[in-house]
C-alpha cells in the first residue's frame, strides 16, 4: 500500500509535512557504508552496537520537514543561477541547467531534531566515544533518509498537479555556496520546522538538510552529474555511487 504523508499548509504555499518515523526505512547497510565498511565487513561488536542504537532511534527522532513552492523566473538567460521568487540564487552552471526548465521550485528543509545529537554528546562526555560516534553516524543516515522521504512526498504532491520534479540540490554541494543558506531561509517563516540558521549559516539542530527541487512539466530527474563537477572531495559522489550500486 502506498503511504500518503499528510501535509499542512502553514502559510500560502508553505507546507509542513508530517513525516513519521515509520515512514523511514533506515537501512543497516547504509549505516555500514557511512562508517566506511563494505557490505557485511563490519566487525560483529560494532554491528551489535549499531543494532542497539537502531533500537533506540525511534524515541530519539523528532522529525520535522517542510517546503515552500515559489515561482522560478527564467526570463533571464544567465547560466550562473536562477531567480526563485524575488531572489537570485547563484548556482553552478550544471545545476542551473538542470533547474532552468522549472516553472516552480520547492525550497525544503528537514530535521530529525536534537535528541540524537544530545545523546551522542552525553556518551562522548562519559567517555563512550565509539558508541557516541555510531549514534552520530546513525543520526546522519536517518536525516538523509528523512530528506529522501520528503523528496518523494514532494514528487507525489506535484504529480497530483500534473507536474514533475528534478533532483534535489543543497547549498554546500555542487559548487553552491553554503552562505546562500541565508537566502534560502529568508523564504521560510521564522523557526520553520524548528530549525534555526546561525550567522555562520549552520543549521541547528545539526542533523538538518536544506535544498531546492525544481518543479514543472518539462523537468526530469537525471543521474547526478557528479563526473562533470569540479569538487573532487565531495563525498556525495561516493555516497551516491554506493547507493546506486546496492539498490540497482
Amino acid at each position: 500500500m502506498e503511504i500518503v504523508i499528510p501535509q499542512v499548509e502553514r502559510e500560502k504555499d508553505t507546507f509542513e509535512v508530517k513525516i513519521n518515523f515509520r515512514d523511514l526505512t533506515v537501512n543497516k547497510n547504509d549505516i555500514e557504508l557511512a562508517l566506511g565498511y563494505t557490505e557485511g565487513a563490519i566487525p560483529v561488536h560494532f554491528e551489535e552496537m549499531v543494532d542497539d542504537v537502531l533500537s533506540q532511534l525511534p524515541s530519539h527522532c523528532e522529525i520535522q520537514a517542510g517546503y515552500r513552492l515559489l515561482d522560478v523566473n527564467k526570463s533571464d538567460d544567465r547560466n550562473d543561477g536562477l531567480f526563485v521568487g524575488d531572489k537570485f540564487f547563484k548556482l553552478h552552471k550544471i545545476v542551473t541547467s538542470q533547474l532552468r526548465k522549472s516553472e516552480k521550485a520547492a525550497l525544503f528543509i528537514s530535521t530529525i531534531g536534537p535528541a540524537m545529537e544530545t545523546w551522542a554528546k552525553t556518551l562522548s562526555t562519559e567517555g563512550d566515544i565509539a558508541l557516541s560516534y555510531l549514534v552520530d553516524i546513525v543520526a546522519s543516515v536517518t536525516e538523509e533518509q528523512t530528506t529522501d522521504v520528503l523528496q518523494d512526498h514532494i514528487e507525489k504532491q506535484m504529480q497530483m498537479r500534473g507536474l514533475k520534479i528534478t533532483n534535489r540540490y543543497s547549498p554546500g554541494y555542487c559548487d553552491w555556496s553554503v552562505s546562500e543558506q541565508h537566502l534560502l531561509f529568508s523564504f521560510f517563516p521564522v523557526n520553520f520546522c524548528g530549525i534555526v540558521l546561525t550567522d555562520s549559516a549552520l543549521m541547528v539542530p545539526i542533523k538538518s538538510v536544506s535544498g531546492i527541487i525544481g518543479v514543472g512539466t518539462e523537468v526530469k530527474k537525471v543521474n547526478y552529474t557528479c563526473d562533470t563537477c569540479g569538487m573532487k572531495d565531495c563525498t556525495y559522489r561516493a555516497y551516491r555511487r554506493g547507493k546506486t550500486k546496492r539498490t540497482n
Partner: protein
Amino acid sequence: MDELVVRISHCVENGKINKASPYPNAMKGMEGADELTKQALDAAIGPDAILQACNDGMQRIGERFSRNEVFVPELLMAAKAMHAVMAHLEPFFKSGTVKVKGKFVLGTVAGDLHDIGKNLVRMVVEGNGWEVIDLGVDVKSTKFLDAIKNTPGCIVGLSALLTTTMVNMSKTVQEIKIQFPATKVIVGGAPLTMDAALKMGADGYSHDPQGAVTFLDKISAA
C-alpha cells in the same frame, strides 16, 4: 622487548581494553591493556617502555586507518585501550618520571558546533602521547589566544566543517600568527585542503587524525 610490553602494544592496536571487554571478538576473555599494564608495572617494567609500546600500537592502528583497512570505530577502541594504560601511568606523569611529547591546544572554530571530528583528533593525538587541551566547539579566537598564552610551546589545531566557518578559521589563524608567530598551527575538517590551509597561513593540514600526529611528532623532533 619484554613479552608483556609486546602484549600491551597488541592490546592497544586492537582496542582490547580489559578482560571484561567483549571487543575485539578474537580476544574475548583475554586480559587487556588494563590488566597487562598493571602486571608490567608490578614486574618493574619502566613506564617509558610501556608508553612506547602504546605509541607503537596507536601508530600501527593509525596507519591501518590511513590505508582504509580499519575505520573510525576501530580507531576509537584503540584510543580507549590506550586510555586504560594511561590511567596506570598517571602517577608517573604527575611525578615527572615520564613526560608527554608536548601540548596540543585543539578546538572547533567560532560559529561551528561540530565536535565529532575534533574529538576523534583529540583521542588519537592523546593516544600518541600528547597532552590535549580541548577548548570545545564554537571557540572564539580570543579563547585560542588565551590558551596559547597559558600554554607555552603548545601547537594549535583548528577544526571546521563548513566553508562558511572556514572563514572564521582563517581569521583565527591570522590572529594567532600575528600575536604568536612561532606557534605552529594545523587545520582540519571536511571542507579543507592543503591549499586552503596554506593560503590562510596555517603550517599544516591533514584529512585525518593520524596526519595530525605525524605533523606534531615532526615538530617535536625538530
